[in-house]
């Protein structure tokens, strides 16, 4: 071993902490630089050279400190480090990056001290340099951690906002709108779409998107191979990182990604149910969001995304419950409203009309109700266009036969649901509806339709029963009113008229009757039962029968009314009916009458004005408050007298006080004194109340005895000639004129009147024709006078004039101011 190889033992003599100053300088644990005030390196230690890889010779005298810094640090050196050092003579912990010889960088912390010479002029700068490589990386980590935390906080904020929005969203559509806005602020997604599950139709439906130009918007079956459907089936988050991955698994997705320039897609199922139990969750939709760049999602982001899926799923679930509750409420309201609307109409036709109008457009765009009533059935349609009638008829037949609803399906050509309308166990008809295909929740919808059909069926059945009762009441009333009023007796003539209320009301309880008690005694009745409808009509029938039973030769009007008072103790509905009852002795021409709460009859004798018969009055039948002492009044009548019996509908009018009603009636009755009896009551009703009146009107007019002289005034209307003949025939019969003479007189008289009307009053529709007839033992004489323009023979009425001359024995034409024809016919032997 050579000597030089031996360790220098002399150094061992030093204490370990007794450093050699030179060695300490060179190998201190920090870099050490001494520079001139302009920065030129004049001394550098080995530590600095080792860190930076420079040769000492390359630095000393050649480089300035600032030359060793990165460009950014050079700027910082000039703007901060150097001025600070000049001002304060020292700087501490300045962070700079030194560029090494190999171009790499060493982060350092620098402390510098400026030594000044005599007079304060800068002399030299001493700088220590600490390696800060590890500290910088630590700081970098801190910074990264902070930005990660900030991003996470931002996501949480976005998510919180979304959750708040979801909580406030009452409908599925609003939930979808809220959630579709989330991924862009939270994850910097490029666009987002949302699909919801339609469980009824087993489909996935795209409902919202922030960029509708992307993706495929067709509804898809849940069993589809498309990516959205796959993820909905699996129920777990799926991230498609790039196009290649998409192409490998979901060709449809790859195609739309390529088309819309997307690189990464997240498919998030929107779930509800227990998060820990995958099998228990149900998928209500899928949120799809995509990125234009390839995007790695951190675990934290994935956690938040999953959370978003659960929150949205729960919000959807809640909204569905809300939706269901709201629909249930709407349906209940609709049903209640429909029942109310139907109740407002009583008649079957109107009620059916109301039903279809209620359906369209509220729940259907077309509706028809068909009922099996009457020979032709009843049909009411609303909306349009009408569907194929043959298909509909087949479906109606099916629903009627099976007594179960036939619902429209997605694939059917008709598109109509047919509901049988049943009530009390039988099918009354059907209600057919064409509804929008997207009426969701078919089960609930079907229950609703069944409830609707139930209510409609009952309402229509009630209307049908009402209609039936009404028809029965009307036919009962007609049969009672039309029955055998005596006629053909020359001693009297009866003419009646019944006019039902004009406003579609039920039949009233008004009635009239006339019958012979004995061959010489005629009974006449007009009455009014309280109330309307079948009960009033049947009560009227009972009262009518009771009166016929009580009327006999010995009773008389007052005792008959007492009998009715007893009758109504058994027939309560007859109580408070009003009746005027009169008996006429046809030979003696004597009238006896009694009024039980009824309006007074009106009498017109041949001489003098018409008068109301105000005697013989007492209270209504069975009255408790009114006067029940039944009285009657007797009076003799002149042959030719007319009596009018009527019910209150004739004189009572809302726009006229009752007493003025009586005045008008008196005046009108007097005015029509000359009118033929036939048609007189109808004419009176027409004048007094018109067609549109609110009450039934019942009139009976009685003419007693044969007038000595028949006098009538006719309007210029051909229909009047038949009415005149009716009166004249009765008058001639009453005087015992033989058939041949009667036929001849009727013919001659009719022709003369026809001539006046057809020619005398050709230009005057308001002209009148006066007819008077007298009778002697051997002849009948008739005078027909008009004030029109004479048309002589040679006209088309030539045959008429010839008939007058041929049928009558003597004829005289007097043409003065108008024409008067006087005709005479000898009587043959009475038959």
């Amino acid at each position: 071993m050579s000597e030089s190889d031996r360790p220098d033992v002399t150094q061992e003599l030093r204490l370990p902490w007794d450093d050699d100053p030179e060695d300490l300088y060179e190998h201190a644990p920090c870099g050490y630089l001494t520079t001139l005030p302009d920065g030129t390196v004049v001394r550098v230690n080995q530590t600095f050279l080792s860190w930076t890889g420079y040769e000492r010779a390359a630095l000393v005298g050649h480089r300035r400190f600032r030359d060793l810094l990165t460009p950014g640090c050079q700027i910082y050196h000039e703007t901060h480090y150097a001025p600070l050092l000049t001002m304060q003579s020292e700087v501490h912990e300045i962070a700079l990056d030194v560029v090494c010889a190999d171009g790499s960088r060493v982060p350092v912390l620098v402390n510098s001290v400026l030594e000044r010479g005599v007079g304060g002029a800068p002399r030299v700068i001493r700088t220590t340099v600490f390696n800060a490589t590890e500290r910088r990386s630590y700081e970098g980590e801190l910074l990264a951690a902070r930005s990660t935390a900030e991003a996470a906080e931002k996501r949480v904020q976005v998510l919180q906002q979304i959750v708040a929005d979801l909580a406030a969203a009452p409908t599925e559509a609003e939930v979808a709108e809220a959630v579709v806005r989330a991924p862009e602020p939270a994850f910097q997604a490029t666009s987002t779409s949302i699909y919801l599950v339609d469980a009824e139709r087993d489909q996935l439906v795209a409902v919202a998107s922030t960029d509708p130009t992307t993706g495929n918007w067709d509804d898809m079956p849940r069993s589809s191979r498309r990516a959205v459907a796959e993820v909905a089936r699996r129920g777990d988050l799926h991230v498609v990182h790039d196009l290649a991955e998409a192409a490998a698994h979901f060709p449809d997705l790859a195609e739309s990604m390529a088309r819309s320039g997307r690189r990464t897609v997240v498919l998030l199922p929107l779930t509800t149910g227990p998060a820990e139990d995958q099998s228990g969750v149900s998928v209500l939709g899928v949120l799809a969001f995509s990125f234009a760049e390839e995007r790695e999602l951190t675990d934290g982001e994935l956690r938040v995304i999953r959370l978003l899926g659960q929150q949205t799923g729960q919000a959807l679930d809640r909204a569905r419950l809300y939706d269901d509750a709201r629909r249930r409420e709407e349906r209940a309201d609709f049903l209640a409203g429909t029942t109310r609307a139907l109740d407002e109409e009583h008649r079957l036709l109107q009620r059916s009309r109301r039903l279809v109008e209620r359906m369209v457009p509220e729940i259907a765009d077309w509706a028809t109700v068909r009922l099996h009533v009457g020979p032709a059935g009843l049909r009411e349609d609303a909306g349009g266009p009408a569907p194929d009638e043959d298909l509909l008829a087949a479906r109606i037949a099916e629903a009627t036969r099976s007594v179960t609803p036939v619902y429209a399906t997605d694939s059917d050509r008709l598109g109509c649901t047919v509901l049988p309308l049943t009530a009390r166990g039988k099918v009354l008809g059907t209600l057919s509806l064409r509804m929008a295909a997207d009426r969701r929740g078919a089960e609930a919808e079907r229950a609703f339709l069944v409830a609707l059909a139930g209510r409609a069926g009952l309402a229509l059945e009630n209307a049908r029963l009402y209609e039936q009762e009404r028809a029965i009441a009307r036919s009962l009333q007609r049969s009672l009113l039309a029955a055998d009023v005596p006629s053909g007796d020359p001693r009297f003539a009866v003419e009646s008229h019944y006019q039902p209320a004009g406003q579609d009301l039920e039949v009233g309880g008004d009635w009239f009757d006339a019958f012979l008690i004995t061959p010489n005694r005629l009974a006449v009745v007009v009455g009014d039962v309280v109330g309307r409808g079948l009960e009033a009509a049947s009560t009227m029938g009972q009262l009518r029968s009771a009166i016929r039973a009580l009327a006999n030769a010995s009773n008389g009007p007052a005792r008959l009314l007492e009998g009715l008072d007893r009758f109504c103790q058994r027939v309560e509905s007859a109580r408070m009916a009003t009746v005027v009852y009169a008996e006429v002795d046809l030979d003696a021409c004597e009238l006896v009458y009694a009024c039980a709460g009824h309006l007074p009859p009106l009498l017109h004798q041949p001489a003098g004005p018409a008068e109301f018969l105000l005697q013989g009055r007492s209270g209504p039948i069975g009255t408790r408050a009114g006067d029940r002492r039944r009285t009657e009044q007797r009076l003799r009548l002149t042959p030719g007298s007319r009596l009018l019996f009527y019910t209150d509908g004739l004189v009572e009018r809302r726009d006229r006080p009752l007493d003025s009603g009586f005045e008008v009636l008196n005046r009108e009755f007097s005015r029509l004194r000359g009118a033929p009896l036939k048609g007189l009551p109808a004419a009176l009703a027409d004048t007094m109340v018109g067609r549109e009146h609110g009450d039934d009107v019942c009139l009976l007019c009685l003419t007693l005895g044969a007038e000595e002289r028949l006098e009538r005034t006719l309007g210029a209307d051909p229909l009047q000639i038949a009415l005149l003949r009716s009166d004249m025939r009765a008058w001639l019969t009453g005087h015992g004129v033989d058939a041949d003479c009667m036929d001849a007189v009727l013919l001659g008289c009719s022709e003369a009147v026809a001539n006046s009307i057809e020619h005398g009053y050709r230009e005057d529709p308001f002209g009148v024709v006066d007819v008077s007839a007298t009778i002697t033992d051997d002849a009948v004489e008739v005078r027909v006078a008009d004030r029109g323009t004479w048309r002589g023979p040679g006209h088309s009425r030539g045959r008429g004039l010839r008939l007058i001359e041929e049928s009558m024995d003597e004829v005289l034409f007097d043409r003065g101011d108008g024409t008067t024809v006087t005709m005479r016919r000898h009587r043959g032997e009475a038959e």
Partner: protein
Amino acid sequence: MTDQWVTFSRRGVAETVHLKGEIDLANAHDIGRAIVARTTLADAVLIDLTAVSFLDSAGVRLLDLIVGELDERGKPIRLVVGERGPARMTLQLCAFRTDLFAIDLDRAAEELGR
């Protein structure tokens, strides 16, 4: 509208018109239209007037028109008027041809059928 006055039936070859009630100026026109509608193409016509309670010159004019029209076409017509009654009286007063009259409906139908 005119059903209360006029109804129709068929007796052998003859289209039979049954008139009823009062026929006068007020209804003759409508009755005439109803009858013509049924008799224009008939080979024989019977008009039963036995139930007519009144017949005036307007009714006569109507019958005259129908008879004239059938005569022109060479088709037979009979007016069944019974032995007496208002219709027969009026027609006789108007001097209708007696060969048009028949007493009994069935016999008249038989005659036309021969």
